[in-house]
């Protein structure tokens, strides 16, 4: 079983921090613009602050375990994904059902030379996040090749 790039820890943390920031902005905005004259307003604002805090802690601690748990593998017949910290998911996609494979790369991902790969089937899509660029594009090519051969 192969692992994803170790940088993924950093990426997940950055993601988490961004979401924390968004929630904090909402909470602060509510704090300023709401007049605190009813109970539900207190509850609303406090819960958004709480949520931001939980996401912050989550984004600082969890990426390490997420990285440790994420495994993927592929061969002629299937793609296997294994992930999840508390609830472990084990996904098997038969190669003959794969329709196409996407890769995407944002600005931050580009800087760290990472790539996100998405496998599409008729039943849904599965993402393998944060692969090293070369590994990712090689994987994409080899999956595409196998799919093509299977279909002929």
């Amino acid at each position, binding site marked *: 079983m192969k692992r994803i790039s170790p940088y993924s820890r950093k990426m997940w943390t950055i993601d988490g921090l961004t979401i924390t920031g968004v929630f904090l902005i909402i909470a602060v905005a509510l704090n300023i613009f709401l007049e605190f004259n009813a109970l539900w307003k207190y509850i609303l604002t406090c819960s958004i602050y709480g949520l931001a805090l939980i996401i912050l802690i989550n984004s600082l601690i969890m990426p390490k375990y997420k990285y440790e748990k994420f495994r993927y593998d592929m061969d002629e017949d*299937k793609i296997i994904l294994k992930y999840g910290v508390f*609830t472990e998911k*084990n996904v*098997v996609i*038969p190669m003959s*059902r794969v329709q196409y494979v996407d890769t995407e790369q944002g600005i931050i991902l580009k800087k760290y030379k990472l790539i996100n790969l998405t496998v599409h089937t*008729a039943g849904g899509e599965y993402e393998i996040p944060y692969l090293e660029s070369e590994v990712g594009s090689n994987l994409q090519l080899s999956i595409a090749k196998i799919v093509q051969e299977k279909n002929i």
Partner: protein
Amino acid sequence: MRELKHPHKFIIFSGIFQFIKNSIIPLFIFLISIGSKIPEKYGGNYTVILAIVLFLFAIIVLYIVKWKKNVYGLEERGIYIKHGIFEMHERTLPFSQVHTADISSSIVQRLFNVCKLEMDTAGGDGKSEISIFLSKEEALRVKSIIFKGNRNKDEDEVEIMEEKNMKKFTSSLKDLFVMATFSTRILAGFFIITAFYFKIDNIIPDEVKKKAETVTGDMVNGINDTSIIKYIVALVLIMLFISWIISVIITVIKYYRFTVIREEESIKLSYGFFDKKEVTIPINRIQSIIIVEGIIKKQLGYFSLNIETIGYGKDKGESTMICPIAKKELLDKFFEDILPEMNITYDLVKSSRKALKRFILFRLLVEFIVMSIIAIFVPYGYYIFLLVPILVIWDYIRFSDNGLYCSDDFVVMRYRNLARKTVIVQKECIQSVEKIQNIFQKRRAIAKCEVIIAGDILGKSYTVGHMNENYIDDIIEKTL
């Protein structure tokens, strides 16, 4: 050589009728607000009438032009259609891409001997790719050409096979009655009527209410506490009865003479009282079959059968019912006659007993929290704890209904939400398999199995929990 034809003239009437139906209320409001503002000396009300007549005339001309410009033609490999007034749309649909072709006709359409032919392909949005009005004979002809083009076989052979394979299944009126009686629609109807009953107080004008009060006032004075309960019970019964009648009427109208015919490569459904619907579903588009056993219906030995297809236009995202209700013996016969491909025997593997205690305890924990909240905030809310034994029994039933089976060609899954569902999936249709387990389950080698099949927009997934880990690994091994 392309031979172009116009669709049936009925489209002019139906178009105009549709337009009037949709625009009459806004038009009315518009006219009322405008009409009174035109001074008498400029013609007053006559202007309004003139405007309406002109407007209608324009609409009629528009629809006639639309009909004139709308042509279709059958080519060797596909159907060609052209429509539009200012902007011309042309479309050619290859026969091989047509997944379903529905013929439907409402009661008015039947008077004119007209049908609506709708063709669907796998992709695309909710609308049918092609929908045209044709005379009945023409529609049947087009349909037969499409599906003949679809099969690459000798025509003679096909015809012989069709005659031999005319397997039919019709549900009787009595079955429909049973179905209506136990459908959830009754409860929905009950709530709607109840809501209406309470709303009626606000709707009725005051004078009527006063009159009614003087009549009923004497009666109400005579009513004491016990008879009020009787009064309410009677009211509830009456409402239930009304919603039952409505439910029966709706069901009978919708599923009247529900007939399933097996043809060579497809199943044909036809049903409906006013709106006669005909649906053709090719066998190889069927993704899964779901046998539904409702709680009450099952006690009477009734089942219904749904199938999941892709590219089926009418109820996108919804599964298609191919057998509204039937007794067990009939169901077996149904499988033999109509769907011999899916007629398999299975021996389900049950959930592992090791998981039972934890499952019930965990469920109870969640339920307990919810119930505690209710008990605190609702007066007399602590009576809700009486539900605990019922919930435990219910959870036990749910747990023991879980089952999984896997042969070389099929995966069978059984689970219960409210009704017990048995899902039969062909191996080729499985898009992916997931094994899900949390840390507690991992220690006991128990896992949840999720099978995902293709759907129109999103895939459909079926889940069976608390199975032995090894067995799921087996299934994964076999699906590849």
